[in-house]
C-alpha cells in the first residue's frame, strides 16, 4: 500500500555497483563509531563510574541514527501541516509518543522512572508558541538542529550555537528587565528564603521561576485520577489516557482534516464507509515508512534510556550525577546543592544552555548567581557534562548514518539562512526557557509520562508554527517579488 505514495528512489547507476569499502562514507562512519568505542573504553579504564556518562553518549548515538533515518523533525510535524498540508511527520511523532508512553510505563512499573512533572501554567503555552514560531525559521527543532548538524548543515550548527548562548544569556538577564517583573513575583521569590548568593530578586528569570513557576502545580495523570495501583497508574492513567488516547484522537483528526480528501479522490471512493476510512488512516500511517519505523525505535530507545539511567542511579545509590562527580573529585561546576543537570531521559535544551554558560563563565561573566545554573543545573565542564554528551552523540549518530547513506554534505548557508538560524535560534531559546524545555523535554518526555502540560506545550507550538508559516510565506513573497513564480 505504501508504494502508492512512495514511488521508487533510485540510486545513480555508478553508485549501485560500488563495493562497501569503495564508498568513502562507510569508512568515515566506521571510524566515528570506532572512535566513540575507543574513547568509551579509555574512560572506563580511568574509572568505571564514567559508565553513567557513557550511557548518555550511546543513547545519543542511537537517537541520532533514528532521527536521521526517519528525517524525524518535530519542527516539520507542526509546520508541514500548515505549510504544505502533509501529516507525515505529525503521524510519525504520534507513533513515537504512543510507543514511548508504553516503555515509560514499563520503566515506572520497574520502579526506576526518572521523570519529574512540570508545573502547569500560562508560561508553557507562551513558551511553546515562541518556540514554535522560531522553528519555522531555523528549519528544525532542537533535536532536528543537532541531527542536521550531523548531516553537515552549517546553518543548523548556527542554530545550536544561538540556542546555547541566548538561553544562557536569558537566565542571567537583569538590569532594566527587573523593572518589568510583576511585584508579586518579586515578593514571592524573596519569600522563598533562597541562599543569598543566588540573588533571586535580581534577574527576571529567577523571579519568574521562584515567584511564579514554583507556586504552580503539576503532576502525572495517574496521581490526579487516583489510580493507586502501580500497574493501572502507569499503563491506564499515564500511558493510555495521557498519551495513547489523545494521540489516536489527533491521528483521526489529522486524517479527516488533512488526508481524507486526497485519499478518497485518489482511490475513487465516492461513498466512503468506516472500512475505507480505517484503511485511509492506515495509509496515512505507512505513507512514510522510514518515519514510522524511526518513531517506533525512538519510542523504545527513549524508554530504555530511562531504565538504564534509573538502574545506574540505584546501583550507585545516587539521585543525581553531581554526587557521582563529587565522589570522583570533579567538584568544579556543580550547583550549590552539588547537582548538575541530569534528567535521565532524552532532553536537549538545558545542556546546550550549559555549554553557552560555561564559555561565558570562562570569559568572565558571572553565570552562577541564579536559580537555573547556581541552584539546579550547575555549569559543568563540557567534557564531563553527561547530557551534553548525549547531544554530541546525536550529532555523531546522525553523521554515521548520513555518511553511510551518501547523504552527508557540508552545506554552507547563505546570509539569509544564517540570519534566520541565529534569530530563530534565539526565539527557540526563549521559548524553551519559558516553556521549561523544547519539544522533547517539554512535550515528548512529558506527555508520555502522563504529564498533560506537554499537550499544552504542543498546542502553543502548533499556534506558533501556524504564525511562523504565515510570516515565512510573506517573507518569501516579499523577497522574491511577485513574478518569481509566474513561470
Amino acid at each position, binding site marked *: 500500500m505504501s508504494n502508492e505514495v512512495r514511488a521508487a528512489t533510485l540510486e545513480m547507476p555508478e553508485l549501485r555497483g560500488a563495493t562497501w569499502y569503495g564508498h568513502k562514507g562507510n569508512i568515515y562512519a566506521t571510524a566515528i563509531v570506532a572512535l566513540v568505542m575507543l574513547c568509551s573504553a579509555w574512560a572506563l579504564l580511568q574509572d568505571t563510574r564514567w559508565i553513567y556518562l557513557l550511557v548518555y553518549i550511546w543513547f545519543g548515538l542511537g537517537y541520532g541514527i533514528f532521527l536521521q533515518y526517519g528525517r524525524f*523533525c518535530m519542527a516539520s510535524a507542526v509546520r508541514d501541516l500548515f505549510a504544505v498540508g502533509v501529516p507525515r511527520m505529525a503521524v510519525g511523532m504520534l507513533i513515537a509518543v504512543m510507543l514511548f508512553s508504553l516503555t515509560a510505563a514499563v520503566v515506572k512499573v520497574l520502579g526506576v522512572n526518572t521523570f519529574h512533572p512540570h508545573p502547569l501554567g500560562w508560561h508553557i503555552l507562551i513558551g511553546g508558541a515562541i518556540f514554535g514560531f522560531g522553528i519555522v525559521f531555523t528549519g528544525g527543532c532542537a533535536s532536528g538542529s543537532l541531527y*542536521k548538524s550531523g548531516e553537515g*548543515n552549517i546553518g543548523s550548527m548556527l542554530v545550536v550555537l544561538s540556542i546555547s548562548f541566548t538561553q544562557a544569556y536569558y537566565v542571567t538577564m537583569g538590569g532594566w528587565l527587573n523593572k518589568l517583573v510583576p511585584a508579586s513575583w518579586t515578593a514571592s521569590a524573596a519569600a522563598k528564603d533562597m541562599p543569598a548568593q543566588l540573588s533571586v530578586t535580581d534577574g527576571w528569570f529567577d523571579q519568574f521561576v521562584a515567584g511564579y513557576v514554583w507556586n504552580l502545580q503539576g503532576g502525572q495523570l495517574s496521581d490526579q485520577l487516583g489510580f493507586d495501583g502501580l500497574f493501572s497508574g502507569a499503563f491506564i492513567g499515564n500511558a493510555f489516557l495521557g498519551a495513547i488516547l489523545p494521540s489516536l484522537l489527533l491521528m483521526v483528526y489529522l486524517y479527516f482534516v488533512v488526508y481524507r480528501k486526497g485519499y478518497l479522490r*485518489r482511490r475513487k471512493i465516492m461513498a466512503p464507509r468506516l472500512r475505507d476510512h480505517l484503511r485511509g488512516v492506515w495509509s496515512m500511517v505507512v505513507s512514510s515508512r522510514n518515519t514510522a519505523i524511526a518513531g517506533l525505535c525512538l519510542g523504545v530507545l527513549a524508554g530504555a534510556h530511562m531504565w538504564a539511567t534509573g538502574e545506574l542511579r540505584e546501583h550507585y545509590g545516587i539521585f543525581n550525577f553531581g554526587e557521582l562527580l563529587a565522589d570522583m573529585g570533579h567538584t568544579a561546576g556543580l550547583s550549590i546543592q552539588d547537582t548538575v543537570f541530569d534528567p535521565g531521559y532524552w532532553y536537549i535544551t538545558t545542556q546546550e544552555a550549559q555549554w553557552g554558560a560555561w564559555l561565558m563563565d570562562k570569559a568572565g561573566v558571572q553565570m552562577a548567581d541564579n536559580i537555573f545554573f547556581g541552584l539546579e543545573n550547575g555549569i559543568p565542564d563540557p567534557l564531563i557534562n553527561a547530557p551534553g554528551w548525549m547531544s554530541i552523540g546525536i550529532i555523531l549518530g546522525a553523521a554515521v548514518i548520513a555518511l553511510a547513506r551518501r547523504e552527508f554534505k557540508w552545506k554552507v548557508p547563505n546570509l539569509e539562512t544564517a540570519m534566520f538560524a541565529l534569530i530563530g535560534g534565539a526565539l527557540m531559546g526563549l521559548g524553551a526557557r519559558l516553556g521549561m524545555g523544547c519539544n522533547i523535554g517539554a512535550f515528548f518526555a512529558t506527555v508520555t509520562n502522563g504529564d498533560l502540560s506537554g499537550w499544552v506545550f504542543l498546542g502553543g507550538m502548533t499556534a506558533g508554527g501556524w504564525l511562523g508559516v504565515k510570516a515565512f510565506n510573506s517573507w518569501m513573497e516579499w523577497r522574491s517579488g511577485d513574478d518569481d513564480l509566474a513561470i
Partner: protein
Amino acid sequence: MKGWFGRRAQQRASAVKRVERSVFVHGYGSLTVHVHIDCLGAVCPRPQLLTMRALDHMEEGEVLELVVDNPGSAEAIPGMDMTLGSTHLVTLHEDSCWRIFVRKGYKDSDD
C-alpha cells in the same frame, strides 16, 4: 548592500525556471521536464513551499524537477502527493543530492 539580503539579485536569478528538456533516468525511462527548481543549499520548508507554489502555476500533466540536498525535503515531497494532487514519479539519489520528479495531476489520469 545589494538590496535587502540580496533581494534584487534573488529577483533576477529565481530558483524556479521554466525549461523544456528531456532527461533519461536510468532504471525509470525518459521524461520531459517542464519546470526546474534548484534548491541546493536550502533547508525546510523552502523546497516544499517552492514546489507547492510552482505546481500551482503548472498545467496538468507537466513535470517538475526539484534538486535538493536537504534529506528532509527529499523525504517530504513524495508524501505531498495526496494533498497537492500531484504524482511523485521518481527520486534519483545522486552523490549528496536528490533529483525529484513530480507530475502535476494524478497518475491514473494519463496512463
